[in-house]
């Protein structure tokens, strides 16, 4: 029984990891784009970016999942998500946009936190605008945003469980299935509780990783 449960939970955990990884790959760069939008001197773009951030931070991720997954099918003759793996990609889109909005505000804080004098110093040294951004601002921003980003990323690990509202069969789902009947067992509660071990192990690993990154960054001083 234990082996069966572990196998089923591990399959669920793989789905959780997949959603986690795809969200990071999508949201890390998209967040930077949105943060540029939010800081743009072109007013309509700035307003648009801030509006998007407001909508996606201001509504529950669960609601976003439901809307992104079901609404296309209400208006189109065929739901684009009604393919195999469609639930996963719908969840991925919702998570990427949602997390990009949170990341964008962290980036913005990091970029705006770099003293203006440094950019001016760059100009005096004859650096181009992009040189200043990549070699002066971005490097220091990365160092500043590590603690808040690690916070968000660890939250993301656990938020993946929200995707079960559109029946994505992630880790919590796999644990829950043993209550209802799965792999020939029903009425088992402990697999659900046991999923906590997976989350703890994974977030523990991430915590160590972020501690190392912070330590490495320290070499910039300050």
């Amino acid at each position, binding site marked *: 029984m234990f082996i069966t449960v572990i196998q089923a939970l591990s399959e669920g955990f793989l789905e959780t990891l997949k959603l986690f990884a795809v969200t990071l790959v999508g949201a890390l760069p998209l967040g930077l784009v949105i943060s540029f939008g939010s800081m743009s001197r072109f007013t309509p773009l700035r307003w648009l970016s801030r509006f998007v951030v407001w909508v996606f931070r201001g509504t529950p991720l669960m609601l976003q999942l439901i809307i992104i997954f079901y*609404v296309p099918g209400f208006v189109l*003759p065929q739901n684009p998500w009604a393919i195999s793996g469609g639930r996963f990609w719908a969840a991925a889109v919702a998570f990427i946009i949602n997390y990009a909005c949170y990341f964008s505000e962290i980036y913005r804080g990091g970029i705006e936190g770099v003293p203006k004098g440094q950019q001016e110093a760059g100009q005096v040294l004859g650096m181009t605008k992009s040189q200043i951004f990549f070699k002066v601002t971005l490097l220091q921003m990365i160092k500043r945003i590590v603690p808040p980003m690690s916070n968000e990323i660890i939250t993301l690990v656990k938020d993946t469980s929200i995707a079960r509202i559109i*029946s994505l069969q992630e880790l919590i789902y796999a644990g829950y299935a043993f209550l*209802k009947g799965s792999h020939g067992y029903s009425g088992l509660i402990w697999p659900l509780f046991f999923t906590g071990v997976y989350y703890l192990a994974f977030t523990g690993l991430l915590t160590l990783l972020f501690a190392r990154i912070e330590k490495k960054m320290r070499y910039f001083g300050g």
Partner: protein
Amino acid sequence: MKKFLSLLTAVLMLVGCLAACSAPGAGDVAYVKEKGTLVVGITVFEPMDYQDADGNWIGFDAEMAALFAEKLGVKAEFQIIEWDNKAFELEGKTIDVVWNGMTLTDEVKAAMACSNAYCNNQQIVIVKKDVADQYKTVDSVKGLKFAVEAGSAGKKQVEALGAQFVEVADQATALSEVKAGTSDAAVIDSLMAGAMVGEGTGYADLMYTVGLNDEEYGVGFRKGSDLVAELNKFFKETYADGTMMELAEKYGVQASIIEQK
């Protein structure tokens, strides 16, 4: 003139689409045949839709659905859904049919196109075994705190009783509430209770006592779907040739099957 014609065509196509959208299920038979799959929305529900040790979908409903898909010349695909979202899943075309021991309530009939009833069911009260003797009548359970599946037929029965209750995600969760002692009693389908509660099951320390009402199971499609007629025909044929009863006996629900004529 050419431009005008293409514009006119575009407008007509748009109107055509809108007309099609207003009756979302009208071309369902063609739609399902074209994509080659019948996506069956289920929750895990013994003895209707559940998995064997190898992960295959079995159960009375699951096998009937597979046969029906075969008759249409398509493949049945089983998709686990959140029960609350069943109407969304149909209208959003992420599933084609809800075939999961679904009680034909007024809400269900309003939200989807339903087949003929094929199975009798009862909403039944589940309590812990050691106190079951005290709860043999409908009156005796009125003071209990219930756990019921959100949007289920059981919830309606508890409301009618006037008892205190909490809504949980599904019937299995309602059972685990009783097992964990967070609720005194659950109300679930008698067919499920027969398979999941009592000696030799995962809920050996629970017991079913009093039944609250009688009701019927049906299969749900998108509103206006032409699959309803196909399924009713299929039910008639399989009832007449004995296939339906044979499967019912395999899963122990033969006493509940409704004659299809």
